[in-house]
């Protein structure tokens, strides 16, 4: 039964703590009653149904992602925590060229070649907490315990990406600190933003001599590729190089670390009954990754702006309007996924395994929208998947009889879904047996 409350949406709900903790009821109301919602309070239009989101992803002309174009809605910005977000500017040939500088390092054969490094970094981190668990055992604890977020997932992906960048391993701790401040600066405002900018500036000062060195003697690392890439005889400016590095650190670091925490959260709290199957067959961590990306992806939103008027659901989005795409809402659309609010590793309507950028699964399954689709599909999708699955398999092997330390958990949350805040548990205490 539709009540008056169902029909009307107060846009201030998007700013509420309740929405950050659990956006799904509001998503349902959007999909059901306002598939195109004009949010006058935040000056934007909101799209939430799966099929509409796919149509937008495939329409890069009318729904443009370019943010820093001279005639786009935002001026070229040093104000942004990352500086100029290199991959968001331009479309077409320049955008492709920018992606191609690094894209083939994150997919295909080059990624396969890099897997041993990923495994090694995972092992090193696990040995650190396993060693302390053994030491704790010696002091009389009943078993091992770990706080997964601070002791593993916050550390692991950023170390992987800084390896790919070719940054000295001895400086990894500094990078972990900087990137965490960058991410906090993105998700929060005020003093967090100021600290994010300060961390970014420190990191950029650190990168200056490295950029000089790689320009003079380029290697096979990502920084070398970025500094030496040329389009029609032109290289990227130093600011653009630094923006690119900051973007890779944030995009490659923060998202994957939250993915790992989310996967363990679901196994420990959402579906411990299905964790039994995963323990017996660690290949199922791939399904855990995929269903996590559908059920509650790390990134819930993407932004576009219209380049002309667009008619949708009986209304008209004006030209140069901001549009918010709620991927997290599309992923729960019952028109595509049966029983969408149930986390199920074995659902038959979701394509499991490596995602296709094209979205063209053609086997009766649909893909989740957690990486987007098409032109601006997440560049790191294959690497994120591999890192998360490898990490979870290594963790499982190192934590026999892994179980939650606390019976209840506040759940997955985000500082601010609309400001690019990524969703994950803030901490995750796990007990395991130590022999």
């Amino acid at each position: 039964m539709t009540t008056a409350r169902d029909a009307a949406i107060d846009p201030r709900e998007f700013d509420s703590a309740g929405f950050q903790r659990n956006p799904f009821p509001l998503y349902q109301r959007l999909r059901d009653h306002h598939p195109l919602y004009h949010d006058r309070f935040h000056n934007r239009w909101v799209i939430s149904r799966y099929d509409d989101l796919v149509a937008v992803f495939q329409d890069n002309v009318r729904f443009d992602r370019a943010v820093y174009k001279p005639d786009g809605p935002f001026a070229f910005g040093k104000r942004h925590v990352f500086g100029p977000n290199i991959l968001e500017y331009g479309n077409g040939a320049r955008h492709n060229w920018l992606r191609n500088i690094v894209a083939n390092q994150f997919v295909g054969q080059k990624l396969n070649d890099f897997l041993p490094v990923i495994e090694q970094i995972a092992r090193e981190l696990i040995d650190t907490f396993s060693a302390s668990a053994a030491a704790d055992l010696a002091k009389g604890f009943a078993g091992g315990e770990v706080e997964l977020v601070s002791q593993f997932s916050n550390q692991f992906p950023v170390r992987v990406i800084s390896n790919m960048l070719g940054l000295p391993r001895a400086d990894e701790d500094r990078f972990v600190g900087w990137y965490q401040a960058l991410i906090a600066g993105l998700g929060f405002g005020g003093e967090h933003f100021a600290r994010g900018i300060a961390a970014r500036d420190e990191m950029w000062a650190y990168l200056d001599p490295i950029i000089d060195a790689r320009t003079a003697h380029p290697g096979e690392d990502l920084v070398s590729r970025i500094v030496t890439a040329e389009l029609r005889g032109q290289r990227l400016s130093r600011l653009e190089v630094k923006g690119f590095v900051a973007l890779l650190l944030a995009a490659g670091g923060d998202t994957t670390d939250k993915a790992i925490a989310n996967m363990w959260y679901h196994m420990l709290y959402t579906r411990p009954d299905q964790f039994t199957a995963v323990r017996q067959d660690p290949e199922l961590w791939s399904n855990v990754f995929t269903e996590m990306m559908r059920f509650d992806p790390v990134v819930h939103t993407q932004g576009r702006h219209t380049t002309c008027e667009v008619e949708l659901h009986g209304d008209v989005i004006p030209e140069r309007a901001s549009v918010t795409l709620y991927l997290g809402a599309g992923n729960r659309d019952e028109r595509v996924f049966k029983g969408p609010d149930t986390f199920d590793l074995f659902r038959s309507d979701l394509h499991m395994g490596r995602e296709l950028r094209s979205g063209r699964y053609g086997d009766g399954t649909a893909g989740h929208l957690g990486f987007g689709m098409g032109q601006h599909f997440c560049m790191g999708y294959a690497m994120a998947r591999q890192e998360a699955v490898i990490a979870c398999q290594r963790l499982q092997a190192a934590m026999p009889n892994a179980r939650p330390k606390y019976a209840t958990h506040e759940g997955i949350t985000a500082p601010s879904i609309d400001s690019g805040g990524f969703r994950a548990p803030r901490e995750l205490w796990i007990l395991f047996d130590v022999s």
Partner: protein
Amino acid sequence: MHLRVDYDKCTKSGECYYNHPDLFKPGEDGFPAVLQPDVPAELEWEARGAAEVCPVQAIIVSSGGSTTEKA
């Protein structure tokens, strides 16, 4: 340089035609069509990039006149 797709391996990821639209375009069925099987010199870098970016190594570049294929 010669460029072709192994359609038995192809999973229609779209990486080739999204990243390298000068060399590939999506067919109606989602499989990529090769636009320039004989790759002009200025696109050789792109062709090698496409071979690397394909998640299943279904793009094959080979040097003209050579019997060696690089997958």
